[in-house]
């Protein structure tokens, strides 16, 4: 983004976008901020509450604080597990896709399919698939003698949600990695052949370095999406058993729309939003650093 003429008339071009995002983003957030610093005794009767909601939220000894803390921890653990599986798996599969040929088109189309399914249908698919009576997955696992029950066993529930996310979103990592790999000119592979490099050496010295930028994007996207996951676990486990799979989004919606506990919901929303903003900012900085190093 360099060497462009300074032209503040450009704001005209950006105005429609700005208007929409203002409408969809800033105004709602202002509402939330409003609720987060007030309390209500009934309809339209608000009074100032300062940072009381926040203090309760961030204090692990209060009921709400403990609940928030647990949900946050659960969600972070979930994100971590998914990342640890999806990124290596995605890269590995991307390495298996040929660089040329008709198989490429077919593979890309088939892989994209899981990502085009409405998220509650993804939940429904797996709700069916994991049942011991009518689902192949559930029947197979119980048939092998494993104690597998999504609705009653926490470990089963967790494993299932992780499997769902891996099934659903690994194609994204694969597609991004494949795009990155395709961008590597053939000459690099040819030179590596001449240098006598082994397959591992080619991966570590050529492919992985050139995938850096793509992988940062992939990790950012996947972390964000797992951190915000709602529909799939909600449909399959409802957040249970108990609160075993109650991730932050699910908890937030329960509090906001279910219990209509506006103050707590608002405070939780803001903290939640702040976390995602911070992670975004960190990644953005890493990306620009990478770009700057590359151009040097």
């Amino acid at each position, binding site marked *: 983004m360099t060497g462009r003429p300074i032209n503040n008339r450009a704001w005209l071009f950006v105005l429609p976008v700005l208007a929409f995002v203002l409408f969809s983003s800033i105004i709602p957030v202002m509402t939330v901020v409003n609720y987060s610093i007030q309390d209500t005794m009934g309809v339209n009767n608000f009074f100032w509450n300062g940072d009381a909601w926040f203090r309760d939220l961030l204090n692990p000894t209060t009921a709400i604080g403990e609940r928030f803390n647990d949900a946050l921890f659960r969600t972070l653990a979930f994100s971590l597990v998914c990342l640890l599986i999806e990124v290596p798996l995605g890269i590995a599969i991307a390495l298996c896709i040929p660089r040329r040929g008709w198989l490429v088109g077919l593979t890309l189309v088939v892989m994209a399919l899981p990502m085009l399914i409405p998220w509650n249908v993804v939940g429904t698919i797996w709700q069916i698939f994991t049942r011991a009576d009518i689902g192949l997955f559930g029947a197979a696992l119980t048939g092998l003698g494993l104690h597998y029950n999504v609705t009653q066993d926490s470990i089963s529930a967790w494993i299932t949600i992780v499997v769902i996310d891996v099934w659903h979103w690994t194609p994204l990592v694969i597609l991004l990695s494949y795009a990155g790999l395709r961008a590597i*000119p053939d*000459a*690099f592979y*040819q*030179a590596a*052949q*001449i*240098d*006598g*490099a*082994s397959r591992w*050496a080619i991966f570590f*010295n*050529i492919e992985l*370095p*050139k995938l850096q930028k793509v992988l940062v994007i992939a990790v950012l996207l996947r972390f964000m999406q797992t951190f915000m996951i709602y529909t799939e676990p909600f449909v399959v486990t409802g957040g249970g058993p108990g609160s075993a799979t109650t991730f932050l989004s699910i908890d937030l919606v329960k509090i906001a729309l279910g219990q209509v506990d506006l103050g707590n919901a608002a405070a939780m929303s803001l903290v939640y939003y702040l976390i995602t903003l911070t992670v975004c900012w960190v990644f953005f900085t890493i990306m620009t650093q990478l770009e700057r190093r590359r151009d*040097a």
Partner: protein
Amino acid sequence: MARITLDGIAHAYGGKPQSEQDYALKPLHHVWEQGMAYALLGPSGCGKTTLLNIISGLVIPSEGRLLFDDKDVTHLPTKERNIAQVFQFPVIYDTMTVAENLAFPLKNRRLPRAAIERRVAEIAAMLDLKGVLDRRARGLTADAKQKISLGRGLVRSDVSAVLFDEPLTVIDPALKWELRSKLKAVHRALDLLMIYVTHDQIEALTFADQVVVMNEGKAVQIGTPDDLFERPEHTFVGYFIGSPGMNLMAGKVSGSRALVDGAELQLGAVYPEPPKGQRVQIGVRPDYTELSSTAGVPVQVRRVADLGRKRLAYVTLGGQQIVATIPPEMSSIGDQAKVVFDPAHTHVYVDDIRVTGAAA
């Protein structure tokens, strides 16, 4: 290895050639001698990169055999041929330092550390890379990176041939000359067989001992730069080599005279009558076509170009356009002038192939 032999090497991408057109590289016989520098010269798509990739093993030819000395290596994998290749743009390992880049091929062959370090130092000294050995390869200039690419090829002591695929494409013009001289110095020092692919005739003619001129998959002429200039065997060579290229005039040949649009030219030899229906052309390089105010074939002058060290006149002889050199003593040039052709450097081409005449 003392030589590379191409025995009927031909290549058609896609396997089954139905006609001449399907060949990217038409059948070729040639022997490359060790220690010589060769250039593969030709326009884009003439097959020179295909030929290079066949020699390095990145392409398996659909026909013919490739021999290193007397060993048939046609299907031998690239790893096991002792060749090195330098590509159009620098291929370096971003994450490694210059020293690590140079050491890479030796590490893959499991040489002992001391031997690797010694060899890397040797090559670095030869290529003036000693100062940057510990720097990350990524941050260097394009010409330094190409030197690293070259160094990686030279660092293996069993390498006996180095192949270059238009290596100066991304180099700054100011540094091209320096890098070219360095290549020549390396060639002399290491006595390697070098094959250099380019579409730039100046690069080819200054670098190579012998040039292979290629066009449309065919090796049109193989010879020293002098051969190519003085005795182009094919009209394509005449046209491609030299700036500007050879004048080619349609005409008739009879004995030791040629007739071009009514003007008579003296030929340097006696030529047999060419068979009916074949295209006859008289070729003379502009360097041997001189403008004169006194004797010669009348021409009309279209325009004059002053290139500093020489002046050229673009003239029309009859209906054909040719280029002539203006002798330094000639100062003013009008619309009409005369042109003298040097008979010793006048060639006859029948269907684009040069015909040798008998001595007069």
